[in-house]
């Protein structure tokens, strides 16, 4: 265990854990757009920037992305120093210019006092901020169905060759964790479409409710050693089934006693 100071308060941390983890544990609100605990940090959004210093630095400070900066003993961190807030505002100003229509970006920018960008707005842009949360999650889950393609202005998230990705199982984790809700999908009539790929959902054999795609269930059964029959009923029908089984046992017990 080491000790660092965050906004004047001395807190304990594990040597080498990232500053953002410590900051979040202390329930201090630092904005992020590219952070997710399920995946490795990437430092893409720059919003988690904090000011750091040490007594022996003679008053010098540094500005670092807290999601990628390991905690070290004696470090003094300021998450909302004047300069830090200014940096965040300028970054958000640029995000706002690039994605003027994104409600999520507008709200965050407003929290840092940026209601209108001072740059020229991109009119025909989309809401993808290229944070890579989607691709990193898909990779971590072991599917590698989508990736960042192209460079510079043309950079975007896409499946290989922009065709329906064979590796995608339709788990929706990319879409559900996108900070700007950019990834579209359509779920209706027991089917799902995402990344131009069509899926069939598993329908509960009792009530028809759907939870995950057939392809995802088969993947889990095969690769994680789970009986495929577990996926046939929905959660609610499974609970009823358990109540029925336990009910029968309790009833025998009850009859045996009376």
């Amino acid at each position, binding site marked *: 265990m080491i000790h660092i100071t965050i906004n004047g308060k001395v807190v304990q941390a594990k040597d080498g854990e990232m500053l953002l983890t410590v900051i979040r544990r202390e329930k201090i609100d630092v904005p992020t757009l590219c952070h*997710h605990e*399920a995946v490795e940090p990437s430092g893409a959004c720059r919003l988690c920037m904090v000011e750091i210093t040490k007594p022996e630095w003679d008053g010098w400070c540094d500005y670092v992305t807290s999601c990628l900066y390991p905690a070290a003993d004696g470090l003094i961190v300021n998450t909302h120093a004047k300069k830090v807030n200014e940096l965040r505002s300028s970054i958000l100003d640029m995000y706002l210019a690039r994605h003027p229509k994104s409600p999520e970006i507008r709200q965050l920018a407003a929290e840092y006092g940026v209601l209108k960008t001072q740059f020229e707005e991109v009119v025909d842009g989309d809401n993808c901020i290229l944070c890579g949360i989607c691709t990193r999650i898909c990779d971590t889950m072991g599917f590698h169905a989508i990736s960042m393609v192209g460079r510079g202005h043309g950079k975007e998230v896409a499946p290989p060759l922009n065709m329906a990705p064979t590796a995608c199982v339709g788990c*929706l984790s990319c879409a559900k964790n996108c900070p700007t809700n950019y990834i579209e999908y359509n779920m209706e009539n027991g089917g799902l479409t995402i990344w131009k790929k069509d899926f069939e959902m598993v329908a509960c054999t009792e009530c028809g409710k759907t*939870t*995950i795609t057939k392809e995802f269930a088969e993947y*889990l059964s095969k690769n994680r050693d789970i009986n495929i029959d577990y996926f046939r009923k929905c959660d609610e029908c*499974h609970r009823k089934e358990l*109540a029925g089984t336990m009910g029968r046992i309790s009833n025998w017990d009850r009859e045996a006693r009376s």
Partner: protein
Amino acid sequence: MNNRFIVKPELCTGCRSCELACSFTHAIDGVRALTRITPIDGGFKDLWVPVTCLQCDDAACIKSCLVNALKRNPVTGAVELNHEVCVNCMACVAACPFGCAVLDTQANLIVKCDLCGGDPACAHFCPTKALVWEPIEKSVKKTG
């Protein structure tokens, strides 16, 4: 693991105190959460079964989680879900053969029983002691 959670359906009256206790205990920012325990009609006269996670040894939910958001707490024996890590893929909800990992649609979080970190609130509030949290030796002596 010193204690274990015991469910005795023959004592349950279906009063649903456990649901309230659970839902308040897991509230987020003062908003009541979806209950992780629920008494369900056991199919016979006056027989209710409080259904909740069985904390299986070979847990399908843990196996199904591709980002390791579900882990066993070695002290309490409970399978705990880390919401920071969870990506909401619904694998555990689909995989649990007892339907005890559920989607809290209001909070938009997947939830499951965590034995309240080692002091289950439902057991405190069950008026008929259909739910008990007691030292393992005690229950072994009684049944064995």
